[in-house]
């Protein structure tokens, strides 16, 4: 992708193709570029040094992070390539949920799932490792564990699990799979923990749960795929199953014997923050035949067999397109073209240095693909947790106690970190609501949780957090525990509703709201007395957040 930075003509085409309301390139100074920080002042007029521009930077950071702050957007806007941003992100210290949970507990806060969710918000809003955190959140919706299970009382097990995701989010997918499979949280959630070898005399088999979902959801999927993610079909046009029930059972036998580290199988002291270990006497040592008729010889250890299973699945031709497509859906587009999937899958298979599974390279390929930077496609419906995080980041939200307490966001949004109803996440990758989308053959996974109840509950939650703001006057903020926005820096814009709407739309929606709609908003805002700039800012923000257009990341 270095080609982008070295190919000004190509870059120019891409930049001019994106955004809607102006300000996306850097050749023309528009209303949206003339406001707060005037990022275009340093623009050189030569094509060779074309800067990314404000709207393109805002658009990129909406995908690659939990939303850009003004400073981040303006900084990236002035760059001529994304290389420095990626390098900085790759080097950023991972924000650790477990460290945050333990530190808060040490200060006297209750150890609970609420504390874990607070740590998630903290890392999403305050973490400097934004790309890592955004990728980790995407991975948490593929490699799913949930506290809606027997893990409800184990917040540290889930914080440890999330740290596995974030630590490896820009690392290697095979390494990640190995740590995920051995994590006690996953062991409990999908029952590899405590699965023992079969006892045919008692009609007892090995537990199939992890074996099945490891293939169906974490690696290869149900049907054989082409390199571009489209289904392979047989002579009659039917899809082809990736594996058989017998292979699920045989692989389940290979995955027996796992229990607590330092203990004997399931007997021993619970250790939620260290990899599980296997007990030989509980492990099935017979020979097995797994997916694609790969043989596992008799007499091997549980550890060796788990590695063999993971290597086999990681190297399967399905894994790259299967995982790549879902990561694209989480970051950029619900409906990537087959060619886009194929390009990203190719990077998954080989990062250019012969390494398979390099997630930093995959993230770069997803975010810098021509389809992502161009104007084609419909984008994706924003995830509700990310909408709130974006608002908090853009408006520098904080509470007096330094915490981000919103412990049960699912009540408003039907989404909360590591809290999906099942291993099938909050929504299916192929969800399509009846109507125009289904008729067009398009999917919109996030619309599965945007219904007539959640749209109002979620809207109300955003309203409540928006109305908690610090203003130069008439502040509604009075306590130290509720996260509140800082609207003060925006009040100077309020004298011009046109400019206020344009600036907010730039930073919230990468200037994607049409001039017609912006005009309606600014006309309404002008009816608010100019002596109440904080009310103009608050109402502009609230209206923009509720616009149907704002629900869609384009």
């Amino acid at each position, binding site marked *: 992708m270095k080609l982008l930075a070295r190919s000004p003509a190509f870059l120019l085409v891409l930049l001019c193709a994106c955004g809607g309301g102006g300000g996306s390139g850097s050749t023309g100074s528009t209303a949206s570029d003339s406001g707060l920080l005037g990022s275009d002042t340093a623009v050189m007029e030569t094509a060779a040094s074309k800067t990314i521009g404000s709207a393109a930077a805002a658009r990129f950071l909406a995908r690659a992070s939990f939303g850009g702050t003004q400073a981040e957007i303006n900084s990236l806007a002035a760059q001529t390539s994304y290389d420095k941003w990626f390098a900085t992100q790759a080097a950023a210290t991972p924000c650790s949920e477990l460290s945050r949970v333990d530190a808060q507990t040490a200060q006297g806060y209750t150890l609970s799932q609420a504390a874990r969710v607070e740590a998630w918000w903290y890392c999403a809003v305050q973490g400097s490792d934004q790309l890592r955190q955004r990728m980790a959140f995407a991975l948490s919706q593929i490699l799913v564990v949930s506290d809606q299970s027997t893990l409800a009382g184990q917040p540290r097990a889930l914080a440890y699990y999330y740290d596995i995701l974030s630590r490896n989010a820009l690392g290697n997918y095979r390494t990640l799979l190995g740590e995920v499979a051995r994590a006690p949280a996953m062991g409990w959630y999908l029952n590899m923990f405590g699965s023992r070898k079969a006892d045919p005399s008692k009609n007892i088999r090995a537990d199939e749960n992890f074996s099945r979902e490891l293939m169906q959801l974490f690696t290869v999927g149900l049907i054989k795929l082409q390199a571009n993610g489209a289904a392979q079909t047989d002579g009659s046009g039917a899809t082809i199953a990736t594996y058989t029930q017998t292979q699920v059972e045989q692989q389940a036998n290979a995955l027996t014997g796992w229990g607590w580290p330092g203990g004997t199988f399931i007997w021993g002291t619970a250790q939620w923050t260290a990899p599980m270990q296997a007990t030989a006497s509980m492990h099935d040592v017979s020979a097995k035949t797994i997916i694609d008729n790969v043989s596992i010889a008799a007499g091997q250890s549980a550890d060796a067999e788990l590695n063999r299973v993971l290597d086999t699945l990681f190297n399967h031709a399905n894994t790259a397109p299967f995982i790549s497509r879902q990561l694209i859906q989480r970051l950029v587009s619900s409906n990537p073209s087959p060619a886009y999937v194929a390009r990203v899958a190719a990077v998954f298979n080989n990062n250019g240095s012969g390494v398979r599974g390099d997630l930093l390279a995959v993230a770069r390929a997803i975010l810098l693909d021509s389809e992502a930077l161009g104007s084609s496609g419909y984008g994706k419906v924003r995830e509700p947790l990310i909408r709130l995080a974006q608002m908090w980041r853009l408006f520098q939200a904080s509470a007096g106690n330094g915490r981000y307490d919103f412990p049960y966001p699912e009540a408003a949004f039907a989404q909360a970190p590591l809290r999906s109803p099942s*291993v099938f996440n909050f929504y299916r990758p192929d969800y399509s609501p009846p109507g125009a*989308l289904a008729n067009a053959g398009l999917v919109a996974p996030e619309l599965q949780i945007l219904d007539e109840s959640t749209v109002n509950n979620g809207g109300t939650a955003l309203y409540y957090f928006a109305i908690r703001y610090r203003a130069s006057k008439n502040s509604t903020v009075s306590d130290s525990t509720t996260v509140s926005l800082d609207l003060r820096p925006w009040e100077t814009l309020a004298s011009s509703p046109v400019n206020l709407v344009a600036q907010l739309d730039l930073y919230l929606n990468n200037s994607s709201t049409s001039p017609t709609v912006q005009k309606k908003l600014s006309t309404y805002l002008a009816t608010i007395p100019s002596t109440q700039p904080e009310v103009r800012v608050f109402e502009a923000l609230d209206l923009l957040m509720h616009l149907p257009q704002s629900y869609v990341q384009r």
Partner: protein
Amino acid sequence: MNPDRRRLLQLGVRIAAGSSLFATLGAYQRALAATSSASGDYRALVCVFLFGGCDTANLVVPTSASAYGLYSAIRSTLTLPLSGLLSLNSLLSLPLLGSNRYGFHAACPELQSLYNNGKLAIVGNVGPLVAPLTRAQFQAKSVPLPPQLFSHIDQQRQVMAGMAGSEPSGWAGRVADLMASAAAQSALATNISIAGRNTWQAGIDTVPYVLSSSGAPRMRYWQAGDSRASARRALFTGLLDAADAESNPMIQQVSQVQRRAINTAERLATALNGISTPVSFPSSSLGQQLAMVAKMIAARGSLGVKRQLFFVSQGGYDTHDNQLATQAKLFADLSASLGAFQASTEALGVSGNVTAFTATDFGRTLTANSDGSDHGWGSQSLVIGGGVTGGGVYGAMPSLLLNNSDDAGSGRVIPYYSTEQLGATLASWFGVSSADLDTVFPNLRNFSTRNIGFMSS
């Protein structure tokens, strides 16, 4: 579903509108015009979806000595003690069961009572099928099989769709599509979910309304009582109209959800104001969902609705682990919640107009892993209501023998009835004509029994 199939199905609906549906609609309109009594022509179906794949082999358990012996042999560590089972009177003589007797799980006294009072029917061994299937045909793959057997998400979808395949619409959605043009059906959606979006209610033309257990939430922003409230509201209404015209269909969808949410929430809040349930419900999620269904049924008059399809759910049935303890809690909640719901509809005088039924991803393996069971196929369904000919087991119960004629392997039971036969029996009671049943359930014609017979009217 591929576009061609979708168009075909839509075409099927349109063709039906020119023939049999016309008669159906005429009948609806006559009935709607004629009705004036309290219960009138009202009918409601309530789908109680048991997410995760319910181990119904431990919900309905044989109590006859020989059959219990087979049960305990195959279930191993999952065996329930005979002494705790709640015995069921055999009110009906149903040929497939022979002399076998059954009992409910010990946690289900309300279900036992409903059965013994003839208000609950058990439908034995239901699951997705394309056509009737024997074990030999399953092994030889000589009859088309439902795709992706034993996968949660695929089997959920097929059960809800009422057809084996990747159909994105559900049978309740297609029933609502058929009725969408019935003039007296109000603007309120026929399909109401208290458990989020689901395939069962997804129509091709019609969209369900999603309610929460605590009612229809309103957006706080619209309740602001300041001097600009009406101007703000007018502005936003205009913005939704503008969003409808956007070329991006995702924006159109969001706009439509917002508009339905704003309009319907206020209407429902008015209709539900002052409505309470006639009996108390469990405080569980399922109990509160069913309480809201009972309130909606109580408010049917002011809402002006005659046909409603409700979706509620209970999760946690994927018992790969710790099954006995987990299912005892789940079954207790299920039983108490369904008992309260039936008591409510009786108190409201509409018991004969409301039918609840359970469905699940799949049954579970009859054999055990250490202390749980894995993904199976056929399962028992419960049907409850005043219109049910209850007190019997319809269909065949699992033989409980490995490698027997109903075993797909490790005690994954090949269904006796297809989910479409179950759905068609319910849809027929709901008012769908026989001809339209073939539109709603495309594979129904592959089965000779079109009505299982558990509905009395």
